[in-house]
C-alpha cells in the first residue's frame, strides 16, 4: 500500500451505516413523490428501523428523522410514528427511562408539525436539540451542530473552463471546547477516508501530503454517494497556524488533471471547492469553531448526488470526525461482551487514547518550540547582545501553555472515558 494513500489505514468499515442513511433519505423522498428518486425504495418505517439499529451517531439519526418527517408531513402514518418512537428510544442515554420517549415525541411533533412539506433547516435542529437536551444530555458539539442543506444556498462559481455555474453551497459547523489542533486529524484531507464512510480514498497524484505541518498537493479524491463513485482531482492546501489558533484545508479542482481527463474520463463535477477548518474564536458559545463549506456543481444532471452529499455525507463527515478523529465522543454502540469485560476494554481504550494523545502533544510541542529555541540560542551566541530573546522565551512559553491546555483536554477525555465505561459505553 502506498504510504500516501489513506484508504489502506482505514480502521472503520461502515458501508452499511452509510447505506442506512442514504436509504432512509431516499425512502422519505420517494414517499414525498420527489422526482428522480426510484420508486423501488423501502418504506420509511423500515428504513428508520435500520437507521435506528445502525452504529451511527445519534445526531445523524435524529437529524435524518427530522428531515424525513418534515418532507412527508401529509403522508405520515402510524407505522412511521412507531418507527420514530423506536429511533428516539434507541438513541436515549442508557440511564434515561424509556418512558420519556413520549415526552420527546411531543417535542418532535412541535418542531416538525405543520401542513406543507419542508426541508431540514438549521433552525429545526436548533429547536429540537434545545428542547430535548434535558432528556438526551447533548454536549456543546451536538447542541451547536448546524448544517445548511437546501436549495436556497447557492453561489456562482467558475468551472475550470471559466464558465460561471450556480453551485450548491453545503455547510456544516459546530462549536467545541477542544483546542483547534485537536481537530487537525479531521481537517487534514489525508485522513478523510478514516473519518467518513463516504470517502473511499485520497490518493496523492503530485506533491507530498503529511500527517502534520503545512503542505500543498494534488489528491485523487474517491467518494461514494448513493452507490455512485466520484473521482475528483483536488488541489489541497493544508495549513496550521504556528500558534495553533487555526488549522484549515482549502480544496479546489485541479485544473491540469481536469483538462487531461476531459476526453477519456471526464471529471463528474466542474465545481468542487471549499474550506475545512477549526479556529479559536473568542466570544463564541465555546472555544473553537469547527466549520466545513463546500460548493458543488455536477457536470451532468444527477441532482441526487449533491442532495445526498448535503443531507448525509457532509454532516456525517463533521460528526464522524468529532466522534472518531478527534476522539471526543465515545462510541455509541452498546457493548456486546460481558459487562465487566466490556468495562475493562473501555477503560483500556480510554487509557490507551490518553497516552497516545499526551505523547503526541509532547512530540508536537517539542517540534513547535524548536524554531524559537534555535533563535533564542542564536541571540545568546551572536556577535552582539540581542534582547529579543525575551520574545523567544515568551513564544516557547506560549507553546508550552497551549500544550498544557491540550493535555488538560486529554485528561478530561480520559475522565469522560472512565465515566462512560461505568455506563456501558454510553455518553
Amino acid at each position: 500500500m502506498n504510504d500516501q494513500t489513506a484508504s489502506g489505514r482505514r480502521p472503520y468499515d461502515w458501508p452499511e451505516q452509510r447505506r442506512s442513511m442514504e436509504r432512509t433519505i431516499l425512502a422519505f423522498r420517494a414517499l414525498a413523490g420527489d422526482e428522480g428518486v426510484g420508486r423501488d425504495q423501502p418504506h420509511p418505517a423500515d428504513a428508520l428501523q435500520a437507521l435506528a439499529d445502525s452504529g451511527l451517531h445519534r445526531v445523524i439519526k435524529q437529524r435524518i428523522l427530522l428531515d424525513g418527517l418534515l418532507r412527508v408531513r401529509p403522508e405520515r402514518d402510524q407505522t412511521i410514528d412507531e418507527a420514530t418512537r423506536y429511533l428516539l428510544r434507541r438513541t436515549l442515554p442508557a440511564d434515561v427511562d424509556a418512558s420519556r420517549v413520549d415526552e420527546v415525541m411531543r417535542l418532535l411533533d412541535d418542531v416538525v408539525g405543520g401542513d406543507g412539506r419542508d426541508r431540514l433547516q438549521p433552525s429545526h435542529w436548533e429547536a429540537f436539540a434545545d428542547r430535548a437536551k434535558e432528556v438526551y444530555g447533548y454536549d456543546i458539539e451536538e447542541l451547536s451542530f448546524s448544517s445548511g442543506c437546501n436549495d436556497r444556498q447557492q453561489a456562482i462559481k467558475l468551472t475550470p473552463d471559466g464558465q460561471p455555474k450556480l453551485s450548491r453551497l453545503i455547510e456544516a459547523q459546530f462549536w467545541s471546547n477542544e483546542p483547534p489542533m485537536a481537530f487537525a486529524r479531521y481537517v487534514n484531507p489525508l485522513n478523510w477516508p478514516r473519518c467518513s464512510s463516504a470517502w473511499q480514498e485520497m490518493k496523492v497524484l503530485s506533491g507530498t501530503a503529511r500527517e502534520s505541518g503545512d503542505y500543498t498537493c494534488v489528491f485523487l479524491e474517491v467518494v461514494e454517494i448513493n452507490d455512485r463513485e466520484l473521482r475528483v482531482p483536488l488541489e489541497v492546501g493544508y495549513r496550521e497556524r504556528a500558534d495553533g489558533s487555526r488549522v484549515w484545508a482549502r480544496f479546489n479542482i485541479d485544473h491540469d488533471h481536469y483538462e487531461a481527463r476531459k476526453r477519456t474520463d471526464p471529471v463528474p463535477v466542474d465545481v468542487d471547492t471549499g474550506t475545512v477548518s477549526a479556529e479559536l474564536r473568542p466570544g463564541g458559545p465555546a472555544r473553537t469553531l469547527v466549520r466545513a463549506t463546500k460548493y458543488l456543481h455536477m457536470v451532468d444532471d444527477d441532482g441526487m448526488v449533491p442532495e445526498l452529499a448535503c443531507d448525509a455525507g457532509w454532516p456525517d463527515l463533521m460528526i464522524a470526525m468529532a466522534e472518531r478523529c478527534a476522539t471526543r465522543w465515545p462510541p455509541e454502540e452498546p457493548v456486546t461482551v460481558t459487562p465487566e469485560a466490556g468495562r475493562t476494554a473501555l477503560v483500556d481504550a480510554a487509557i490507551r487514547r490518553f497516552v497516545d494523545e499526551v505523547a503526541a502533544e509532547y512530540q508536537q510541542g517539542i517540534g513547535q518550540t524548536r524554531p524559537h529555541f534555535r533563535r533564542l540560542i542564536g541571540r545568546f551566541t551572536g556577535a552582539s547582545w540581542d534582547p529579543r530573546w525575551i520574545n523567544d522565551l515568551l513564544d516557547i512559553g506560549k507553546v508550552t501553555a497551549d500544550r498544557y491546555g491540550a493535555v488538560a483536554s486529554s485528561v478530561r477525555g480520559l475522565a469522560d472515558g472512565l465515566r462512560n465505561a461505568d455506563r456501558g459505553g454510553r455518553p
Partner: protein
Amino acid sequence: MSNEELIRLRPRDLAAVWGTAFGQMVDLSRAWLNVLMEAGSAEDPALVGDHRVELRVRATDGRMPRLAARNLVGETFRRSLDPSLVTFTDRGPAGPDLVLVECGVDESRASSIKGDLYHGEVVDERGAVMGRIVLDAGS
C-alpha cells in the same frame, strides 16, 4: 563582564540595549493589541468566511457610503484578489446612523480566481477602514 566593569557602564553605553528593549515592549504591546482585536471575532459574521458577508458601517446621509475593498489576499495560496470584483449592496438601516452592507465577489466578471478565503479591508472614499472582511471566492 566583571562587577567593576559593570559599575563603570554609563546609561548611554546601554542606550542601544534599552532602545531595543523599548522596541521589544512596543512589539509586545502590538501583539497584545492584535490579540484584543481578535477577541470577540466570533461575534463578527464578516470574519467567518462566506461568499457573502455582512458589515455594519456608518451611513452617509442615511445611505451606504461609497466603499471599496483593498489588500485582499488568500489565506492558503497567498494570491491577491482584484478588489474591483468585490460588490457592495445596501441592505438597509442597521441602527442609528448605521447601514447594513452585504459584500460579495462577482465571480462571473473574472476569468479565473484561485479558490481561497480572502482576507482584506473595506474602506470608504477617504480611505478610512470601515471593517475587515473574509470572503470565500474562486474555485
